């Protein structure tokens, strides 16, 4: 019996073309975050918030589907969007780690959302100019939704950090945990840099300074001094994950794993 090893699967990622890795990475980012958000369904603090978080999750599922559909076309191996989402293992997932962290408490979910919302507002805005027409078209749909998300996550950060001692403490704890994972958002890998030169991708590293400035200024209003952590945990784009992704995929992929080729 042949057993696939982790290193063999990691190698699989390296075998893909830069464009394939790029689109798949963006798809994984969206799907994994979407799943984390959807875990609030029926568990949010109150009904309206429940609906709102589920709708944000839906926007991210839509974004993931568009990227997966395109990724399937690019790799041209006969896999469809569902195969990519449900039949790849942890080591083949290449999402950035911040998306996969467990949903935590409500403060944690909203702080993560705020941090990535600010990032995606800047990132997608630039991705609109991609020379790849499909990527630019997906960015055009996603950027409008992401602007709306930020409009909703910002007031929550303000409200919670200026609310009770308890709510402020939870915001601070969430920031403390998340700041180790924000650096990866701005990390450029070699293959991605090649795509930047071709005008397809966005230079993530150029967004670090404006992102820092925006986040610091916003949080300063609530008298929070935000500094990036010197310790940065990374590895997502190479299939190296926190312990949490495997557990999440176990749950998310359960049906397809137990009943292969199951359809609605």
């Amino acid at each position: 019996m042949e057993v696939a090893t982790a290193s063999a699967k990691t190698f699989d990622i390296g075998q893909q073309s830069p464009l394939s890795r790029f689109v798949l990475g963006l798809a994984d980012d969206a799907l994994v975050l979407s799943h984390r958000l959807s875990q609030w369904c029926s568990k949010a603090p109150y009904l309206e918030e429940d609906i709102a978080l589920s709708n944000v999750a839906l926007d991210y599922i839509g974004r993931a589907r568009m990227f997966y559909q395109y990724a399937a076309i690019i790799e041209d191996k006969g896999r469809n969007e569902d195969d990519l989402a449900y039949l790849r293992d942890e080591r083949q997932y290449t999402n950035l780690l911040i998306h996969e962290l467990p949903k935590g408490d409500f403060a944690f979910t909203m702080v993560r959302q705020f941090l990535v919302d600010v990032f995606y507002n800047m990132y997608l805005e630039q991705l609109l100019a991609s020379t790849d027409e499909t990527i630019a078209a997906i960015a055009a749909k996603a950027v409008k939704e992401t602007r709306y998300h930020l409009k909703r996550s910002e007031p929550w950060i303000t409200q919670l950090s200026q609310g009770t001692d308890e709510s402020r403490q939870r915001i601070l704890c969430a920031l403390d945990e998340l700041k180790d994972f924000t650096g990866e958002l701005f990390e450029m890998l070699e293959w991605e840099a090649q795509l930047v030169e071709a005008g397809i991708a966005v230079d993530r590293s150029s967004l670090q300074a404006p992102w820092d400035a925006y986040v610091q200024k916003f949080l300063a209003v609530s008298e929070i001094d935000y500094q990036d952590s010197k310790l940065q945990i990374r590895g997502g784009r190479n299939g190296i994950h926190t312990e949490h992704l495997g557990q999440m995929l176990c749950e998310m992929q359960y049906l397809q794993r137990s009943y292969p080729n199951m359809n609605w």
Partner: protein
Amino acid sequence: MTNTTEQLTTVIPTLHPVYAQRVSVRNNADCGELWQILDAVCDPELPGLTLWDLGVLQDIQQTDNLITVVITPTYSGCPAVDAMREDAIKALNKAGYAKVAVTVVLVPAWNTDMISPAGKQQLKALHIAPPSNEGKVDCPVCHSADTQVLSEFGSTACKAMYRCNKCMEVFDYFKKL
């Protein structure tokens, strides 16, 4: 006095250029009857609001024996797209067109300016406040401008939840996008 203001705003009908562009595509199409057949197909969640009025229906192309219907989805995760696709095919099949394909395109990206004036009226009739370019949301029941947002999201991705402070009605607002 308020009546005069209301009349003034309705006296000058203006077509948004984005909608006007869609009208021009429809009017210049050489398969007008197909557009009319699809006028019977509505959004599954918004009774009476046709795919045309919603702005989802972008184009219809007819070659020898194949009809291609081009639609652009509202929100990227909107699950209604599948129902719209099936309903459009069903309507054309019923009218005697056997081979129908539906293409979902991302360009042009859907936005609320694509909604027809009739579509906005239909939204109001459903007690949903239509998207506003000026950012003011009037109560679709008593028309008061004194409204407040309850939640940035409503029953579907395209809506937000509002309350009228005058008649206290809780209503959906079709978000401007």
